[in-house]
């Protein structure tokens, strides 16, 4: 098992964890963080892909994709955080109505 495998396996483990967290958490901040983690796992996979030939120089194209992907993820996260904050100010809820337990959703 070399670095390539290690990165790849870590990426898959992170991906599974983040998907689990995204679907099982109700709190908006947790779900946004889960999505960011999922993004990071894909970036890690891309970094591994850049090194797939085990050559001395890694392929620069996946690196460019990771950089662009980070910019996209930051923008989406920023919008998500602003929306979540406005939602808390407006409704006092830190989760989407359908993710809340019944009694809390009606309160």
């Amino acid at each position: 098992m070399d670095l390539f495998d290690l990165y790849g396996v870590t990426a898959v483990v992170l991906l599974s964890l983040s998907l689990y967290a995204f679907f099982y958490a109700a709190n908006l901040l947790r779900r946004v963080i889960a999505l960011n983690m999922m993004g990071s796992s894909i970036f890690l996979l891309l970094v591994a892909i850049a090194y797939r030939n085990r050559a001395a120089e890694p392929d620069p194209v996946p690196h460019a994709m990771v950089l662009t992907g980070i910019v996209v993820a930051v923008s989406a996260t920023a919008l998500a955080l602003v929306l979540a904050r406005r939602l808390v100010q407006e409704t006092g809820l830190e989760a989407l109505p359908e993710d809340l337990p019944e009694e809390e959703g009606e309160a």
Partner: protein
Amino acid sequence: MSAPVEWSVLLPLAGAALSYLAPGRWAVVTAVAAATATTGAAVLVAIGVWSDGPASVALGGWQPPLGIALYADGLSALMLLMTAVIMLAIGIYAAGYFRHAQEGTSGWRESDAFLPLWLLLFAALNALFLSRDLFNLYVVLELVTLAGIALLVLAGGSAALTAGMRYLLAAFLASLLYLLGVALVYGEYHVLDLHLVRQTLDPSRLTWLALALMTAGLMIKAALFPFHAWLPPAHASAPAPVSAMLSALVVKGAVYMVLRLWTDVFAGDISMLAGQLVGFLGAAGIVWGSLQALREERLKLIVAHSTVAQVGFLFVVVPLATGGGMADAAWRNDAWSGGVYHILSHALAKAALFMCAGTILLCLASDRLDDIRGLATRMPLTAFAFGIGGIALIGLPPSGTFVAKWLLLGSAMGQQQWWWVVVIAAGTLLSGAYVFRVLRLAFTPVPGLDTRLRVPALMEVCALALALAALFLGLRGVEVLRLIEAGAPLGVAP
């Protein structure tokens, strides 16, 4: 020849930045100039494709695989024209809407975030339809979504914020699934350019996994059943001009990408079963969306559920246009042209319907079905536009939808996939049911409710213009089909 392709992205992008920075009236002037110039560029692209065939532009002079190319074929040109026409109409409609919604203001300027976001969405959609690179498509699809959600939450209030948040979570997950698919394609084949991907791919489990991941992401963004739950509240709670953009254009971005990937880029690697499965989800979407539209009591929610149903129709195109290798290429080509025709026609009709619903909500302060009784005497032009738009949505001749369904039905029968004939016919009847449910109430005279309401003429005229365009789109079938065929992937496929 190459210039208009780049300008159709650059102009609205520059306009978005300038109209954000410009003070007061200048913001409006800049935005109108940018939108008009962009429309001109889109028309030039279409003329170029019409006379010289598909055009490719290597940005900065860097050729793929290292550089990123823009590519305009007939499909792209039609999508650009569709975006330009609808965006312009929505921009004009929005002037009336915001002036009326915020009494005593002069319209656009007060809703200052609207203009830059409108142009940003315009630029992102144009870039999406011109992209020729899997990763570039990921970036612009995300731009489309972010601009769309930012426009949605302009409505303010907890309903719009909740809907926007739900939409953003779904869309964020979707774009990551798509990105994972792109990473797998690059990892295996070392190419991202669509033309190179098509040449390099071979049918393997990894190709299928990558396509499945990308398609799953796009299905979420297109709100295909069962990934549609975010759409109705989002499209119904947005401000009226934004609802029209989201339903007519934003979901089309993802649908367009599915069509590109399935019928063009990955066309050689798709099994019959996979196509049938996608079509089956489309059929389920038609039934589910239509039934919900029949049960809803609010006009905007009815129109939004109708989008879920109509997106279903667009996915039924996939099994007919891919065919799994055993079908006749001519029949597949018919299905593909029908699908493109359906995208155009639905975009025009749905924008018109959402504009009408928005006008009604604004003037009656309610869009409940109970309150729209006697609409035809109170707001005759809007009721008329809704009727025309509804007819175009169902697909009565001479509407564009009629041509689309004619082509799809012919293709389904020609390929002996008769079950899709049943789906399309049943779906058409269902759309007839929910449209006439609204029209029956709107055109029933109610004693005592016969004074005409004061309605901004700008809003009524824009809706009517788009509805009429959708209705008469079918009359220009020869020209549209010729443009669709320019660089059609299936026309040249073996």
